[in-house]
C-alpha cells in the first residue's frame, strides 16, 4: 500500500504530473507577461492534456496502432521510475535503495529516444528531419550534461559515487564554488534536452511543423506531452537537489526549496526563451563542441585536481 502511495501520489505520478504542469504553465505565463501579453492560465497544460486524451487518434495508414501508442508509453513508465529514484523529502527517509544518478540519467533519455524513433516510425518527412536533428543534438548536449553530473559527483567523498543524495548533501565552501561554476552548463544542457529556445531545432515549427511529433495525435500526443511534463518535474527537481540545500533542512523546508528551485529554473528558461531566437543546427553544434564541452570538461578536471590534492 505504501509503495502504491509512493508510486501514484507522492513522489510518483501525481506529484510529477502536477509539478511539471505548473512549471510549464508558469513558464508560458511568464513568457507572455515578458512580451506584454496576458497569456494562458497557469493550468493550461492540464486542459491541453485532458482535451488530447478525449480526442480521436488519427494515424497514418500502414503503421501499427499498437506500436503507435507503445512508443510514447514506454518512456512514461521510465520517467515515473525516474521520479521514484529521487530523494524527495518525506520519501528519502523510508526508501532503502541508493538514489542513483546514472539510472536517472538513462531514464530521462528515453523520452527523446522515443521521439526520434517516432519520427521515423510515422514515416512523416517532417518527422524524419526533426528526428535526425534531435539525434544529432543528443550527441552534443549530453557531452555537457555528463561532465556536469560527474563533476558534482566529486563533491562528496571519497569514496565518490553517483548517488544524488550525496551531491545534495555536499555543501562545503569549495563545493558551493564548484556548484556555482556548473550552473550555466546545467542550464544550457537542460535547455537543449527540453528543446527550448534557442535550441528548439528539432521542432522548428516554421520549417518542419512539430518535427518528430508531426503525426502524433490523440492519446499518443497526450502521452508525449505527459512525458514532457514529467521531464520538466525531474529536471526542475534535479536543479534544486544540485544547487539548493534541500536535504540540509527540515523536510517541509526541503520541499519548499525544491519548488522554489524548480520555478527559478523555469524563470531563467522563460527569460532565455524570450531573449533568443532559434539557432541553426550548425551554430548549435559549434557552440557546444567548441565552447561548452571543453569548458565543462575543464571544470571537471579542475574539480578532480582540487579534490585529489
Amino acid at each position: 500500500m505504501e509503495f502504491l502511495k509512493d508510486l501514484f501520489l507522492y513522489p510518483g505520478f501525481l506529484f510529477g504530473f502536477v509539478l511539471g504542469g505548473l512549471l510549464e504553465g508558469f513558464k508560458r505565463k511568464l513568457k507572455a507577461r515578458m512580451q506584454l501579453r496576458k497569456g494562458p492560465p497557469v493550468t493550461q497544460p492540464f486542459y491541453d492534456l485532458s482535451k488530447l486524451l478525449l480526442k480521436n487518434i488519427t494515424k497514418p495508414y500502414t503503421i501499427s496502432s499498437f506500436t503507435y501508442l507503445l512508443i510514447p508509453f514506454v518512456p512514461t513508465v521510465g520517467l515515473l521510475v525516474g521520479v521514484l529514484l529521487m530523494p524527495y523529502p518525506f520519501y528519502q527517509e523510508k526508501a532503502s535503495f541508493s538514489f542513483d544518478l546514472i539510472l536517472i540519467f538513462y531514464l530521462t533519455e528515453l523520452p527523446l529516444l522515443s521521439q526520434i524513433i517516432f519520427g521515423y516510425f510515422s514515416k512523416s518527412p517532417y518527422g524524419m528531419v526533426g528526428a535526425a536533428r534531435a539525434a544529432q543534438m543528443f550527441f552534443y548536449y549530453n557531452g555537457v550534461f555528463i561532465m556536469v553530473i560527474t563533476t558534482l559527483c566529486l563533491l562528496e567523498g571519497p569514496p565518490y559515487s553517483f548517488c544524488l543524495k550525496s551531491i545534495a548533501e555536499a555543501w562545503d565552501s569549495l563545493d558551493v564554488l564548484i556548484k556555482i561554476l556548473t550552473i550555466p552548463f546545467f542550464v544550457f544542457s537542460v535547455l537543449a534536452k527540453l528543446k527550448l529556445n534557442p535550441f528548439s531545432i528539432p521542432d522548428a515549427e516554421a520549417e518542419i511543423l512539430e518535427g518528430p511529433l508531426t503525426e502524433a495525435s490523440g492519446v499518443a500526443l497526450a502521452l508525449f506531452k505527459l512525458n514532457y511534463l514529467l521531464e520538466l518535474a525531474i529536471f526542475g527537481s534535479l536543479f534544486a537537489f544540485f544547487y539548493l540545500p534541500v536535504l540540509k533542512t527540515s523536510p517541509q523546508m526541503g520541499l519548499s526549496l525544491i519548488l522554489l528551485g524548480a520555478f527559478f529554473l523555469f524563470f531563467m528558461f522563460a527569460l532565455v526563451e524570450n531573449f533568443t531566437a532559434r539557432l541553426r543546427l550548425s551554430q548549435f553544434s559549434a557552440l557546444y563542441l567548441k565552447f561548452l564541452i571543453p569548458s565543462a570538461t575543464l571544470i571537471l578536471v579542475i574539480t578532480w585536481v582540487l579534490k585529489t590534492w
Partner: protein
Amino acid sequence: MFLGFSVGVLFLGALISGLCYRINSPKFHGSLAFLTSAVALYFLNLTFFEFLKTGEFGWHLPLFRWIRDFINLELIFKANGLNLFFALFGAYVSVGINLYAIKYMTHEKEGFGRFYAFIQLFIGSYLGLTLSENLFWSYVFFELTGLCSYQLIAFWYQSDLSSFSAKKAFLMTHIAGYGFLLGALVFNFSPDPKAYQHLILAGVLVAVLAKSVQWPLYTWIPYAMNAPTPVSALLHAACLVKCGVYLLFKFYLLLGGFPEFWKNLLIYLGMFSSLMGVLFALKQADVKKLLAYHTVSQIGYMVSGIGLGTSLGLASSLFHTLNHAFFKGLLFLVAGILQQATHTRDLSLMGGIASKLPKTTVLYLIGAASISGIPGFNGFVSKWMFYQAAIEANHPLAAALGLFISTLTTLSFIKVLDTAFLGKIDEKNKQLSEKPFYLMVTGGIILAIPCVVFGLFPQIAITFLINPALSLLNLQGVNISFYQLPTVLIGALFILFLGLGLLIYFTWLKPKEIIKETEVFKGGEDETVFNPTADDFVADIENRLATFYKKADPDQYLLKICNFIEGLILKVYSSIKKLEQIWSKPC
C-alpha cells in the same frame, strides 16, 4: 576428463569436416558443427557443476616428457573460475551461431567442409586457450585462433578484397602475437617474473591491442567484415576479440595484479580506444562495419575495467565481456539476416523493413537496447558497474567518458533502427518475407535470452560466473544488491505499467474504434529532400568532425612506419650488396 572432451570433440569435428570436404552439403557440415559445439557446451556445463561442488580441478595430457627438464610442454586444462567463465560463454554463443549458420550458408555453392572445419577448429582453439594452464599451449591455441580467423575471412578467397582483408588481419594479429610469446617466455624462464613484469606486460599488451582491437592496432577489424556473417559474429564479436581480454586477466592472475603505471595506461587506453571506435562507428553506413567499430568501442570498457584494478572494476570488465558476447553476437546475426534479405549491407539502401521482418526487428531492439545500456537489459548493468567502479577509484574522467561513449552508442543504434528498420520502405523490399529466416531467428533468440535475463537478474551471472573468477584473482566478490540497483523494482514497474497500458489499449482504445487512418501529411514538399538516410542522419556531426576523421585513422601512420621500416631494410640490403661488391673485387 570432461575438460579434455569439450576441446577434443571440436577438434574431432574439424577433422571430420576437413576429411569429408567432398561432401558439398551445408546441412551436413553445419549440423556436425552445431552438434560438436552443443556437446562441448554440455561437457563444459558438467565441468562447471563439478567445479561448483568441488572447487578447482585439472586434466592433463603428458606430452613431450623427454624435454620436461628444460620446459614443461604437457597439455594441462584447468577448471577454475576464470577459465570456465571464458570457456562457457564462448561455447554457449557458438551453439547459437552454429545453428544460425546452417541456414545462412545454404546461400553458398561450395567450401562448406573448409568453412566448418575452421569454425570448429576455431572454437576448439578458443576453448583450448581459455582452459589451458600451460603458457606454451596457450600461445599455440592463441595463434591457432588467428590462423582460423585468416582462413575464415578468406572464405571468398577469389575476391581480392577478402584475400587482402584476411592477410591484413592475420599479419597484424600474428606479428603482435610475438609480444605474448615474449611475455610467456620471460615469465617461464625467469626465476622471479615479478622483476621482469614491465617487459612481460609490454609484450602482452602489444598482443592484446591487436587481438582485442584496441587503438592503434584495431584497423584490421573493419576489413574482417568481408567474412561471412557467422564468422563476424563468432570470431569478431564474441570470441576471438576476447582472447586479448582473457590474456590480460591471465597475466593479472599470474603476476598477482598490475603495477600502478600499467593500470592507469589500461584505463585511459581503453577509454581512448572506446571513444575512437564509437566516433568511427557513428559515420558508418555499412551495417557490419558499424558493428565492427562498436566492437573496438565496447572492448575499451573491458580493458579499462581491468585497469581500475578494484573488485568492482574487474567485475564490470568480466560482466561486460559476457554481455558483449551475447548482444554483439546477436546484432551480427541480425545484420546477416538484413544482408541476406535485402542483398546489401548499406543502411541507406534499406528502410522500413520492420513491417516485413518483425521478429528480426524485436531481436535487433533487444541487442541495441543491451549495447546502448538501456535499463532492464544486460549492457546497462555492466556499464553501470564500470561507471561506479571508475568514480569510486577516483577516475572521474574515465567514468564521464564511459557515459558519453554510451550515449554515442545509443545514437549509433538509433540511426540503424531509424534508417534500416523504420522510415519509408524501398520498392524492392516490399515483397520481403521472414519465413526463410526462421532458423536464423532461432539462433538469434538463443543469444537474446541472456540479454534480458542478465539485465533483470544480474545476480545470477554475478554469483555463479563472476564472483568465482574474482575469488581466483584474490579479490572480494561483488554484490549488486537490489537496493543499490533496483532492477527488480524497475522490472516490476515496467511489467505493471505495460500490463495496465495493454489493458487500456485492448479494452478501451481498440474496441471504441477511436483510431482513424489518414495519409501522412507532406505539405507538398519534395520527399527526397526530407528523407534523411544513414548517409545524412548524422551529417552535421560528420561535418563538424571532418578533420578528426581525416587525421585520426591510425592506418595512415602505421603505413608510414611500415614504409620507413621497409626503406631501412632496403638501405641495409643495398649497403650489404655494396660491401659484397667491394670485397669481391680483386685486389
